[in-house]
């Protein structure tokens, strides 16, 4: 390369060399200038001397290289047995267990919220008296209506027959039931589920042939699951069918098909629909007394012997009362009337009373 260059440039070799040197020094100066700018900028921005440390601090922050000690000269597992104080219950808890404890203590979890609220209530005197008050309220709610109290007593006596789960759920609902009556919650919610009041008799029947249809005490809506839904018993389904389609309607879905041509069940339900406007103002006390009367009579018997009473009521309405055969028949027709009157205002109490009767 050099030879070629020399040969080509010939006598201008020195001049070319000088040219080359000029360009090279220019490049070097460029680099120097770049460096100068860089340094100047660093000085003006104040980060030029940042990496400089005096000997003292260098010694202080020297990397420690000893066994059992981290690079800062600290024992590296000193946090292992650290204990933290819970801000809520003032107990000392191992750091590794602190988060789970806090969750329980403050009640952030699913189950722990209940535990925590209970604990808070027991810890705090003020809240304790408050909760006592609430308990009293609950008792009052239970006793608010005569029927509810009676049912509660009756349930206690029946407890052996009921499965524990069922009796528990009923008992639980009883408390809510009292309060729902007390708060005059007569307005039904039509937003979700199926409200049986809004359906015509044909619709009700077609619904009951395909679905479980048990009316929930809680939401007052019909169950929309299949007829074999495990949540409700056959007894409940039967009761609902007796209640909605009239007593002569076959209770079990299997028998329902046979009664498709049977017209009588429409009678009472139609009548009850006509009577809605008249009996729109039934007070809670009324419902309670009606429940009481319903409780007195056996529900099995009306189911079997309903035929004559039904005919009477469909023929003459309330006039059928007087003609209602013996004392037993009279009480049955009375019950059926009550049933019809109750229909627009079917309260959870009434439904549960039906369930009670079955037990």
């Amino acid at each position, binding site marked *: 390369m050099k030879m070629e*260059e020399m040969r080509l440039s010939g006598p*201008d070799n020195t001049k070319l060399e000088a*040219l080359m040197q000029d360009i090279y020094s220019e*490049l*070097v100066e460029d680099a*120097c200038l770049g*460096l100068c700018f860089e340094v100047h900028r660093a*000085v003006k921005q104040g980060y030029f001397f940042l990496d400089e440390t005096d000997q003292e601090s260098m010694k202080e922050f020297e990397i420690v290289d000893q066994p059992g000690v981290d690079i800062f000269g600290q024992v590296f597992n000193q946090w292992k047995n650290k204990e933290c104080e819970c801000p809520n219950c003032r107990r000392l808890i191992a750091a590794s267990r602190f988060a789970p404890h806090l969750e329980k203590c403050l009640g952030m979890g699913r189950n722990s919220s209940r535990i925590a609220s209970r604990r808070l209530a027991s810890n705090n005197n003020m809240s304790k008296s408050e909760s006592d008050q609430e308990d009293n309220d609950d008792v009052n709610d239970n006793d608010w209506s005569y029927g509810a109290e009676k049912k509660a007593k009756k349930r206690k006596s029946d407890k052996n027959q009921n499965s524990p789960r069922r009796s528990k759920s009923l008992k639980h609902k009883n408390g809510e039931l009292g309060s729902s009556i007390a708060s005059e919650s007569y307005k039904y919610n039509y937003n979700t589920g199926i409200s049986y009041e809004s359906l015509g008799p044909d619709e009700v029947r077609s619904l009951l042939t395909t679905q479980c249809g048990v009316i929930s005490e809680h939401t007052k809506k019909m169950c929309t699951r299949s007829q074999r839904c495990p949540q409700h018993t056959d007894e409940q389904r039967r009761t609902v069918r007796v209640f909605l389609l009239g007593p002569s309607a076959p209770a079990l879905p299997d028998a329902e098909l046979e009664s498709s041509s049977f017209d009588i069940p429409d009678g009472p339900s139609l009548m009850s629909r006509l009577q809605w406007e008249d009996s729109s103002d039934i007070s809670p006390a009324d419902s309670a007394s009606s429940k009481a009367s319903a409780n007195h009579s056996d529900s099995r018997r009306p189911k079997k012997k309903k035929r004559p009473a039904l005919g009477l009521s469909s023929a003459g309405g309330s006039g059928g009362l007087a003609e209602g055969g013996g004392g037993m028949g009279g009480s049955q027709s009375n019950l059926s009337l009550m049933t019809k009157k109750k229909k627009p205002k079917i309260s959870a109490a009434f439904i549960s009373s039906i369930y009670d009767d079955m037990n």
Partner: protein
Amino acid sequence: MSKDYQLRAAINQKLIEMGERERLKELLRAKLVECGWKDQLKAHCKDVIREKGLDHVTVEDLVTDVTPKGRGSARLKHNSRGVSVCVCVSVSTLCLLFSPLQLSYRTA
């Protein structure tokens, strides 16, 4: 002399146009960082700045102080000599490109 100047200007322009100058500059910078020239100059800058005080430093001061030293040490650095060879090659090829100019220069 004007011809000399003309040739130098032509070559410089050609180097810039081709991007060869930028390439060479980058190469030189890399080589200088590699061989510690930059750190050396930086240390020198530190001394200069300490001398003058942090607030009284200007770019001109730095340039006048640093450039001669930088030029001298760059010449000494073995690594950066490779750059000078590269410069030599690129300039001589450019000279070949400018042969008519050179011819006229030679005849003159």
